[in-house]
């Protein structure tokens, strides 16, 4: 029984990270109907920027752990957001009115470009985050091993997602984003600056992806330029699972995916866990093709 809860906890914290990355995918899809394949690489860049700050600038020595954490989050999120906006300008805006396939190819190209840029700048080897930034202490509840950092990551993810949801649902800008997601031209007709809204989405989504990258670096310590591929794939799956274009859906999809992965490795074979996870995805999609919380599609009035 305690094994069950331990694996559940493992799954939840893993799911929190998938959920953060999935949010970026889902927001961009909602607004542009484009799967941003470069998102996984923005996640990687986030962890590398955190690494540079910690190692090349010796951030932890200057400000101490808590200050370092705050500065890291701020700088990583801002810089990856900026990079995301540049990416949109360079790779996606010129193709706004082209067939969808061109934008997809452009996204793939951007992904390859970013991944290799990271490799050329930082080298092909693994890099390791300095230890000792985050506390190593863990809670021991009923014999369960609960590292504080993972709890922190999970709660931080949930809070960020809640804030995002409130922003989208309750503010005017959020309403503008929702409007653009429904129909570009109609949104333009009511006076919304579509370009600005898309740029905003590409600031928020990548910022979250970069934050997830930073968390992964701090949690697991080891980063490499190819790590965006696997995380991106799983997060994309999570977004589809929850209903692409739907923010609570991405949240839910990410957490469910993490838990399924953890449970299937615990109770079935570890070697088959990815197969099981994708099999569950297929099952859910056959029963509910739009994902668990449903895809946001325009309503015909």
């Amino acid at each position: 029984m305690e094994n069950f809860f331990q694996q559940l906890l493992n799954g939840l914290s893993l799911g929190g990270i998938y959920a953060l990355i999935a949010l970026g995918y889902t927001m961009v899809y909602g607004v542009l109907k484009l799967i941003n394949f470069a998102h996984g690489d923005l996640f990687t860049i986030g962890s590398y920027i955190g690494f540079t700050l910690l190692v090349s600038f010796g951030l932890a020595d200057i400000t101490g752990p808590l200050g370092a954490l705050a500065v890291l989050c701020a700088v990583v999120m801002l810089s990856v957001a900026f990079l995301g906006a540049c990416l949109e300008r360079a790779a996606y805006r010129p193709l706004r009115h082209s067939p969808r396939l061109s934008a997809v190819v452009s996204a793939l190209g951007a992904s390859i470009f970013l991944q290799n840029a990271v490799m050329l700048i930082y080298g092909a080897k693994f890099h390791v985050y300095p230890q000792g930034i985050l506390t190593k202490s863990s809670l021991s509840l009923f014999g369960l091993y609960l590292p504080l950092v993972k709890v922190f990551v999970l709660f931080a993810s949930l809070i960020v997602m809640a804030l995002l949801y409130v922003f989208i649902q309750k503010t005017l800008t959020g309403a503008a984003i929702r409007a653009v997601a429904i129909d570009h031209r109609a949104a333009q007709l009511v006076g919304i600056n579509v370009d600005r809204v898309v740029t905003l989405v590409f600031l928020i989504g990548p910022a979250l992806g970069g934050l997830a990258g930073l968390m992964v670096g701090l949690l697991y310590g080891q980063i490499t330029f190819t790590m965006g591929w696997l995380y991106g794939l799983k997060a994309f799956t999570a977004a589809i699972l929850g209903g692409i274009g739907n923010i609570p859906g991405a949240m839910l999809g990410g957490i469910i995916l993490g838990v399924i992965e953890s449970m299937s490795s615990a109770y079935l074979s570890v070697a088959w866990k990815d197969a099981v996870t994708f099999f569950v995805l297929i099952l859910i999609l056959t029963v509910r093709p739009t994902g668990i919380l449903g895809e946001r599609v325009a309503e015909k009035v």
Partner: protein
Amino acid sequence: MKRALFFVYIAILSVFLLFQTSYSADTIKIGLMAPMTGKWASEGQEMKQVLDILVEDVNSKGGVNGAKIELITEDDGGDPRTAALAAQKLVTQKVVAVIGTYGSSVTEASQGIFNEAKVIQIANGSTAIRLTEKKLPYFFRTCPRDDEQAKVAVQTIKKLGVKNIAILHDNTTYAKGLAEEAKTLIEKEGGAIKVVFFDALTPGEQDYTAILTKLKSANPDMVFFTGYYPEAGLLLKQKKEMKWDVPFMGGDATNNPDLVKIAGKEAAAGFYFLSAPLPKDLPGGEAKTLLNAFNQKYGHLPNSIYAVLAGDGFRVIVKAIESTKSTDPDKLANYLHKELKDFPGFTGTIAFDEKGDRVGEVYRVYKVDENGQFVLQP
């Protein structure tokens, strides 16, 4: 206007293509296929560094049979698909022989291509038994084989008094082969040692807490992980964070100083692994000359024994070309199979059997101490 531009592009492209053809007819081309990028980049880059030193040395002494050696490097990215492309590229550049590569599944992807093109291939970091069971006449390897490694693994397991062993691999050709060999040998021991866990993890991921939790509940006395060093480093780190202190043992693919970097010194201390002797523990004068030359050029000793094994592969093929005074693949293969005896390599004396395997016993046991140093066990 657009048409004109198009033709200008074609013209520029053709000029670039022209420069690709090799300029000298009097060089002997030797290929190096190595993971220059990807998760095993540190291995590939050192392989090239060692070969650069050796090529320079040979060429400064006048080359082989009067011709200079030209080293052509292709990156296989540590991936079988990229390796197939890299192999094709080397074949079209008409190399006489190829040294490489690291990673049995990657080597396997290139074997057929080289064999069909009659290019001698000398692998340096591919220990899966399968590779030499295919009766490929042009394939050799300077690294040892996994059946020897499994034997030494089981011997060590017995010596350490382990009663319940967990075996973990990562589904690659090498890791799975080694794990299954070890399991078969343990089962032959007749019940003295029990295999309580046998499964695979997915390489390339970062969170292995789920599988560690599962391993923990199987209650082994020791875990034998037959995968590669990136995953081994993460396993050690995460097991330490879980405060689980069962000893781990690794196969020779966990042998890389990045292991300590990834896991951290604390977590890596007490980790056992099997390996051919490390560069710093190599006996013999040949090895010392190479180590000094390497140190002089690059400022540190080579970290990887596989890079040194690549060096051995290079010297062996140079000797073959010199002795047979030709670059004919059949003559070279015949020489390597039959006439090369007791060649003084960096890693000991080298000879090949009729399957292309290296003759002799090579594997030793190492342990990581608290400072992250790899210490040879008696």
